[in-house]
């Protein structure tokens, strides 16, 4: 039976200065304007804009340094950087591929995953990676695509896929970027603006992503076939489907779940809400409208792995998939949840094993 082990981490919020807020601009008229507006935004959203905890990041790198030989892939579902500004994105990139001079430390004595093969990463952008260097963190930034092209060739609002081969049956992870378009301000919730935390599955500013996701899934099912056995296909996105918090919603989530059900996607990996959770979308079938049958889709949400001062804790999860090597078998999903514990290291705090339909 093919067995795949994936590490899923998310929402690192890497910033130039750890445990801090994005610095306000210093000079000029626009800088003053930006400082004025950003400070208002920061007052409301300051928690979401807090950068990473360097010591938690170090503990994560340490865990990977010890355990990476047991993993097939490392899935990072967005918000690697705290903002889409070049300086934060570069810091995030340095974490992924900065040369490790000694164990998991780079030349600046900062943690790096540079000891790993770049090919083991599955990386996609989140809403923070797409903040433009503008007042109020407007959406639509594309600096991530340039800097992370080696990891995310999918481009803005695009789709990319990774195949983890096995002699008996392949595993494919398809990533999609449901970023808001540059002129899409989301759906405001009372007086709160939507663009800071929301993203959209489909709409006039984002007409292609969902169709591309479906097309990619269908063509990869054919291309990555082993004999006459289809690959197991998972999806990875940044946003939580049916997030209960209005300001963090993936708008038109129901469309995504409908396509996932039609394409028989068993698992969707997500991040964004900073809550580690498992959410069988079956229990939310009413959101799909009358007559919708129960979909066997599980959303696995990963909390923030490294943001400083995270009240929900700092988490990641390890997924083990026992994949049937023939037609008609059942996929078994085991999840081990790891949390930064006792101010020292990540430890497994809960384990579950579930048989998927």
């Amino acid at each position, binding site marked *: 039976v093919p067995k795949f082990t994936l590490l899923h981490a998310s929402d690192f919020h890497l910033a130039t200065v750890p445990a801090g807020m994005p610095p306000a601009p210093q000079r000029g008229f626009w800088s003053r304007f930006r400082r004025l507006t950003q400070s208002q935004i920061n007052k409301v959203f300051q928690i979401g804009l807090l950068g990473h905890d360097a*010591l938690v990041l170090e503990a994560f790198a340490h865990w990977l340094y010890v355990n990476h030989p047991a993993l097939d892939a490392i899935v990072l579902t967005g918000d690697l950087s705290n903002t889409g500004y070049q300086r934060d994105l570069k810091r995030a990139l340095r974490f992924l591929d900065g040369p490790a001079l000694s164990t998991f430390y780079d030349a600046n004595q900062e943690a790096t995953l540079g000891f790993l093969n770049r090919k083991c990463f599955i990386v996609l952008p989140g809403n923070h990676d797409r903040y433009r260097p503008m007042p109020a963190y407007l959406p639509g930034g594309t600096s991530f695509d340039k800097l992370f092209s080696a990891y995310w060739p999918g481009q803005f609002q695009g789709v990319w896929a990774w195949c983890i081969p096995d002699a008996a049956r392949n595993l494919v992870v398809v990533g999609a970027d449901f970023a808001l378009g540059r002129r899409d301000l989301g759906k405001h919730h009372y007086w709160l603006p939507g663009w800071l935390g929301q993203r959209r599955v489909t709409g006039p500013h984002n007409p292609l992503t969902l169709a591309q996701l479906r097309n990619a899934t269908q063509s990869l099912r054919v291309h990555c076939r082993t004999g006459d056995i289809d690959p197991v296909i998972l999806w990875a996105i940044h946003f939580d489907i049916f997030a209960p918090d209005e300001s963090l919603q993936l708008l038109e989530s129901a469309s995504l779940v409908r396509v996932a059900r039609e394409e028989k996607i068993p698992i969707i990996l997500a991040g964004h809400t900073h809550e580690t959770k498992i959410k069988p979308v079956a229990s939310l079938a009413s959101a799909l409208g009358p007559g919708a049958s129960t979909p066997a889709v599980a959303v696995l949400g990963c909390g923030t792995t490294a943001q400083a001062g995270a009240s929900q804790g700092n988490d990641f999860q390890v997924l083990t998939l026992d994949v049937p090597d023939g037609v008609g078998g059942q996929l078994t999903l085991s999840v081990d949840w790891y949390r930064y514990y006792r*101010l020292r290291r990540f430890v497994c705090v809960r384990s579950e094993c579930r048989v998927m339909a």
Partner: protein
Amino acid sequence: MFLVRRKTAEALFEAQEPRLKNQLRLDVSPSFRAANLRGKLDVETAMAAIGERTLQVMGGYADHQVIESPNVPFVVLMPGPDSFERPLERRLKQSFGLDQSSSSSSSQTALQLLGEDFAAWVEQTPQEAEEYSVYTEAEASFPICMRCEPFPPLIREGDREVGDIQSIDPFKLARREPGAMG
């Protein structure tokens, strides 16, 4: 809970590199966070946050020794009342954003105050310190050490609950309690 004194928090803030002041926040740690992260240092919160960060640095330092020598049983944190071990001192300076040069008297003063607070915490609350694997031998106050532990194996086969995916209730890992340090 390891709380530093007000004067220690203020001294660490004063000793921060100018470019990092109010950027690298001393009032943020895994379970503490100032209410206004754009404002000046929240000293009350910083007193608790610095305590947590100090223990974080020490935990990372001890764990790193396990890579270099897997069977090392402990590391020394403070050999005597005056200072931390030199490599640990470098890590503390980096974590708090202090001037790394040894000639910086404000950094040295701040770290000395931090050392006094830490030694007092270990002496006065040995059971609490023990929860973080921090201890001293017998009746002595120094050296202060931290136990090193190997990493557990990755997957604990057989430790998982098994069930059908449809039967699982949506669940979330519980939020961390403020100040719970876990």
